[in-house]
């Protein structure tokens, strides 16, 4: 280093805190401060039970997301002759899930589906594929250029849109890459090239009603300037881009 050389700061790994509500220990510290002493055990039990429902839901979703991202299976892998189980899956999805990952969690807990998947996995193993339903493989391979939509559907999540609010909008479905690690989709809003147009930030993700993808629910405020809005969808853990949402706000 010479005397006149200007030094630059190192690039930070990130510049935002991780806000995931489940990021901390869901069970809490083993010696929680303060309020524990006066809590009636019966009520505490009920509370724990209630929150375990949420914790289970999240944990199952996370676990499913992790396995899903390993590329061992896709929803479309469910054999056609499992119609009844598929119907049960949809029912479970409606009752239990808010995300595609939760749907996968429900799949994993269904003994019938597990059996079906195991059979298919064994078949795969025989042809050099996966060694089993619960086996973990390295992360999914990146998309190949020119891959067919059928190939793509086996790896990626189909993203559709639902619009709410006073404004109108339109969009074509898109694809989201599977995250490298279990993670949730996050976004930084949809932005317009027009400098005066405020970004669209009221966006939530949920499972598609058919359990085969993700729906982005977007609030279009009344009076939102018309035009094209776009923005990246990232995974909450690595902040890698999973895909791009593009919509058109109509007059």
């Amino acid at each position, binding site marked *: 280093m010479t005397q006149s050389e200007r030094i630059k700061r190192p690039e930070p790994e990130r510049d935002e805190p991780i*806000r995931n*509500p489940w990021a*901390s220990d*869901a069970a*809490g510290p083993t010696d929680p*401060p303060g309020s524990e002493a006066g*809590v*009636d055990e019966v009520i505490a039990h009920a509370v724990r*039970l209630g929150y375990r429902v949420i914790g289970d839901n999240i944990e199952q979703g996370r676990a499913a997301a992790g396995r899903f991202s390993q590329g061992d299976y896709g929803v479309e892998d469910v054999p056609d002759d499992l119609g009844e189980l598929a119907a049960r899956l949809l029912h479970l999805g409606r*009752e239990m899930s808010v995300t595609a990952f939760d749907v996968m969690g429900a799949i994993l807990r269904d003994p019938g589906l597990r059996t079906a998947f195991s059979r298919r996995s064994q078949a795969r193993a025989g042809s050099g594929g996966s060694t089993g339903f619960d086996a973990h493989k390295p992360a999914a391979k990146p998309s190949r250029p020119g891959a067919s939509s059928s190939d793509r559907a086996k790896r990626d999540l189909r993203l559709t849109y639902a619009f709410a609010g006073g404004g109108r909008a339109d969009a074509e479905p898109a694809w989201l890459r599977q995250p490298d690690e279990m993670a949730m989709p996050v976004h930084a809003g949809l932005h317009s090239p027009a400098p005066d147009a405020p970004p669209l930030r009221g966006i939530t993700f949920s499972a598609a009603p058919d359990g085969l993808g993700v729906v982005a629910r977007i609030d279009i405020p009344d009076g939102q300037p018309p035009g094209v809005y776009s923005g990246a969808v990232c995974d909450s853990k690595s902040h890698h881009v999973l895909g791009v949402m593009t919509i058109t706000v109509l007059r």
Partner: protein
Amino acid sequence: MVRPIKVAVIGGGCGALTAAYELSRPEHDGRFAITVYQEGWRLGGKGASGRGSSGRIEEHGLHIWLGYYDNAFRMMRECYADLAGAAGGRSPYGHWREAFTPEADIGLFGLGERGVWQRWAARFPPAPGLPGDPRRPGELLSLVGYTARTIGLLRTLLLDCVVESKETPAGPEPDFADLSTIDRILSACRILLDRGAFAGAAVLVEALGVLGAALAATPEAFDSAVVRLMERSVKGLRDWLEANTLLGDRHQYVWEIVDLVVAYLAGVVRFGLLTDPRGLDAIEDYDCREWLRTNGASERALQSPFVCGLYDLVLAFEGGDPERPSLSAGQGVRAGLRMFFTYRGAIFWRMRAGMGDVVFAPLYDVLRRRGVRFAFFHRLTNVGLAEGGEIAPGMRSHVESLTFDVQAETVDGMDYQPLLEVSGRPCWPSRPRYDLLRDGERYQREDWSFESHWDRRRAGEKTLKVTEDFDFVVLGVSIGAVPHVCREILERDERWRRMTREVQTVATQAFQIWLDEDVDQLGWRGPPYIVSAFVKPFDTWCDMAQVVPEEAWSRRPLTVVYFCGVLQDPPAPPADDDEDYPSRRTEEVRRSAADFLRGPVRHLWPQAYGPNGDFRWEILASDEATSGSARFSTQYWRANVNPSDRYVLQTPGSFRHRISPLDMTYDNLTIAGDWTKCGFNTGCVEAAVMSGLLAAHALSGAPPLDRIVGFDHP
């Protein structure tokens, strides 16, 4: 030989000094050569204090540390240990446990129905551990964990209230063991709704968590139905409590808190906070009251001492106007959860003496021992950038120069020695040590105000150049001063313009009175509370008797009491050449304080008034011979109107305009202070320390981000 990286740290508040502390760690092996540039004669920023006549402690306001200030306590504990080690165990600062003492009580005031001020008090039990103890990975709670703890608090509050129920418990116990369907969950809730005992109500509140599970697990088509049912459940609980617990004001307060807790729980599930990757930032666009109101809190609860105290304690009033309370919901909830559920040892910690003495003197001492240089009497006037035009988001630039007014020079160019000894401990004086300054006598005679934004007198000017004089900059001035010292950045960077516009600050006021009678003698009943939600403008006060032995009175008073609150801004901001502005506002504070003693203090200390109803001015302790109301002139008051003294607010939506110390727009600059996007966006010591840790990380990669407690937090 590799030359050290020269770091210019601008400012001497908690954020700036934390960055200096981290960068000067022995582990860096001298990699950074650090100079702290500070206007005036003392460190501390908004936490600066000084010693006045009789060695008395004169503060900016009331500073209490909270038991969850893990990063701040960790630094101070290390600091005290370093000093003890260096002094062979005979450090004048002593052990950190002598410097900080636990406080379990808080008092709040509310105006009762008959126009009488009613007091509500809470004692928070000791919690395991001490603040700053290492935390296990993942020890901080998730939102689910916090929510369960919130219900625990609710239960504790309910148990704290003696209820004379007019109803008898009815209906079978709900079957919590089978919550496999929405119908069963709702059925259980309805059963709970019909029960008439407090315990049943508590179970109902907890069942709301189960309802939350149902809400989270239900597709959109069911959302509105579940929300409606939950709202009805909350209302049912509210109605029941209203009918059964309003037996007196004390119960009213309990009910108000129950109301707020239920609203919080409803909000958690209605807003999907348990699964939102934004965590509590998802509700940052709401005001706290507005968000609680949205979730069913009653108007009475929203105006309760608990909520008023929350706003008062963080001075959350735009422009200092009591009619414009403003506190973002996400950070308000986050701070509340941290405060109630993650404290260790005690919920509050008092300092033995002034914050300058307990925090900034030992920090200064340690930093000096590590080779950090201090340039006092250096007021930053401009941050010069590399040539170019508008700096759009994603573009980069760097700092080329730093320009300072040199306010004063020392005799013979020696380093300024800022500390004096009072009662055997190093302390900051309330005035410069004129004897160490060239022309010091003249400065004293002409009353140069080195800390006044409006006093621009100076001895000279100095410009530092990048690579020659510095490599990196830690900008640690407060955001109120940024428009005055970063004009070039603001001219070219819309993000900084927006930040200085949207991240608001508020002026504050404070006064201290030393008393020859203690508060018990004056009619106060109860422990020496930290008291808030009292009458404006001095809505928060604290009996600070513990600091008196540290002072140097010829005849020691029995106690000293600190009062503070916001100070309303004038309709138009003062001009930069309005030299008298600080003295006019200070005089205004003096009059307000004296009137406060004549009036509202009567509710606190009835025995402080004579038979004719006048305040007994003779109870004010003074080494001067004065009498009557003139005796108040011997006490201490101040108006914190300097831009850098203004308290930083967290108004709804403002979080997205804050800039992180990790932001790379300027590749040789980082920022520090409680105004930055530091993960805990509130005006407090802990936020400032977190920002300093982030600033150090930005320059050195250390400490790792996961070592900053509470940075990654919902």
